[in-house]
């Protein structure tokens, strides 16, 4: 001890002795002593439902989908509830579903991608132009289309991570840029279905129908479901997926946990680009021809599917199958309302209502901790 002061002088009186509780804390002895016991309080039914929705974000949209199917079955019964009609809905949501997978990944990172539709069409145009107009071997043209999609994603990713621009602005810009490139490269010309069938049938492969017991789906639908399963696996069973959620949830916390946020974001944008390119391939199958004007509504429709599917626009929350359910809800409502003889404008009205209700529910679910 090098101090010259008298210890007793300072250690007495007002100074509480070491290793003892503060006076005001004495009463705590009677309270619980474990540090973080995760006790379950008795919850009211509403609170329990709240926690249930929080733990299972897909539950709410699944409920809506179930109710919609039951409702339309009652209203438009025999025409609605046939294998053919329901499989038709599946076919109709194929493109939105695939693009929705890409959009979900981006939105989970608290971003948004307005360029998904443009990337999809650009990829399909590259495939078609190289295979038909340039006469390249089909696998090469196909590969070039896929790489185009990934490059577009890479550009978005670089602008978001390295240049640090907000995803909304980046993809608003690249939406126009990719769309303009697409018009320039295609010369605004549509490649006709017969030409593709004759020279590059593989590009239409995803349009091949499969008939099972009166239902008709296409390989495109199978591809969509496959993509959902693959991305579900990646998000829920690999470290990469956990990191995607963590980055979207709280980027600072993720960084402090040792996650390289930029690398995760960049990979997400590239994977989204890849999925959009596959969407482009499915688009050729769906419409037969390759048109630079196709898929104009894919951007906003994919966001609609993601949001109705219960994924939070603020990132870090949601599930990939929610998007499939979201896309199906939109498909079922359009189809069911049409079969019930409701005017198209009320279909749009209903979809708009669903979006707002979905986001409202999301906000409510997020308050679970309070």
């Amino acid at each position, binding site marked *: *001890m*090098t*101090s*010259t*002061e008298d*210890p007793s002088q*300072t*250690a007495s009186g*007002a*100074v*509480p002795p*070491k*290793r*003892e*509780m*503060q006076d*005001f*804390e004495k009463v*705590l002895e009677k*309270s619980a*002593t*474990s*540090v*973080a*016991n*995760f*006790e*379950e309080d008795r919850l009211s039914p509403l609170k329990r439902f709240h*926690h249930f929705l*929080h*733990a299972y974000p897909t539950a709410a949209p699944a409920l809506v989908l179930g109710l919609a199917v039951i409702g339309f079955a009652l209203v438009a019964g025999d025409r609605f509830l046939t294998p053919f009609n329901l499989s038709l809905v599946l076919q109709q949501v194929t493109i939105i579903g695939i693009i929705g997978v890409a959009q979900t990944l981006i939105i989970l990172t608290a971003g948004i991608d307005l360029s998904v539709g443009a990337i999809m069409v650009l990829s399909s145009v590259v495939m078609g132009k190289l295979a038909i107009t340039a006469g390249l071997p089909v696998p090469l043209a196909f590969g070039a289309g896929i790489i185009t999609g990934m490059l577009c994603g890479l550009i978005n990713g670089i602008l978001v991570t390295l240049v640090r621009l907000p995803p909304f602005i980046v993809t608003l810009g690249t939406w126009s840029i990719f769309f303009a490139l697409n018009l320039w490269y295609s010369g605004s010309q549509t490649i006709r279905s017969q030409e593709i069938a004759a020279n590059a049938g593989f590009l239409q492969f995803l349009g091949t129908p499969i008939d099972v017991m009166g239902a008709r789906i296409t390989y495109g639908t199978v591809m969509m479901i496959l993509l959902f399963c693959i991305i579900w*696996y990646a998000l829920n*069973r*690999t*470290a*990469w997926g*956990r*990191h995607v*959620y*963590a980055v979207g*949830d*709280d980027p*600072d*916390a*993720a960084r*402090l*946990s*040792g*996650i390289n946020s930029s690398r995760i974001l960049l990979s997400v944008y590239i994977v989204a680009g890849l999925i959009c390119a596959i969407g482009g391939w499915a688009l050729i199958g769906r419409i037969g021809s390759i048109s630079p004007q196709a898929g104009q509504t894919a951007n906003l429709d994919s966001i609609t599917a993601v949001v109705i599917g219960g994924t939070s626009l603020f990132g*870090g*929350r949601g599930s990939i199958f929610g998007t499939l359910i979201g896309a199906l809800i939109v498909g079922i409502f359009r189809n069911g309302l049409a079969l019930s003889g409701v005017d198209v404008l009320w279909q749009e009205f209903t979809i708009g209502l669903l979006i707002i209700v979905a986001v409202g529910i999301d906000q409510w679910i997020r308050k*679970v*901790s309070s």
Partner: protein
Amino acid sequence: MTAAVKPILEAHGLVKRYGRVTAIDHAEFELYPGEILAVIGDNGAGKSSLIKALTGALIPDAGEILLDGKPIQFRSPMEAREAGIETVYQQLALSPALSIADNLFLGREKVKPGILGSVFRMLDRKAMQAEARAKLSELGLLTIQNINQAVETLSGGQRQGVAVARAAAFGSRIVFLDEPTAALGVKESRRVLELMLDVKRRGMPIVLISHNMPHVFEVADRIHIHRLGKRIAVIDPRQYSMSDAVAIMTGAMPPPGMQVAA
């Protein structure tokens, strides 16, 4: 402790300048095995910069850091963590939407053995959950039902508990706690203090950065007082009062000439 005990972590002559501002001015630092060392200092005294330098979040311009007597340089928090230095930041660094188990293993996930892990990168969730449960019960943190509960459904103290558990759990050798009780209520602060003493009993040294004098004086073995970018004193909390510490910290009282023998 005797003079024969070597510091586990020490720093000599650390300097960090930001333009004309000197955040760390030839600072000294020593942490001995098994102790709780509190670092106190007024706002702007440079204690954050010092802690950042010691945990790899900041690269000092000059000076040396020794871990177990061997010189070491951290270029990132990851490198410090790999060397066994864990930090619980004030903002906790937990991902609210992820589960307790996910958070404990965030950034160091385990994959399944064999081809499932090497090719398909499949996480070994069972092993991680079991280990998370074991780690939490080890620290008496668990009377648990649900390790897969989202962290955001926990209270502030419970989150702090998870964060401390994560820092103390993974073969780490030193834990830095930055204002662990700043955002907590009375009862929760008490639990976190007990948790700190518990971690100490298990032999792990803790560096506690805090403004809360009662908490500092209750748990610390030694108090490192930082002022104007350097360590001006190390005091024994049994021999000085809180007001002395505050007086030294703010310059109202001259620091006792030398540090207390360890």
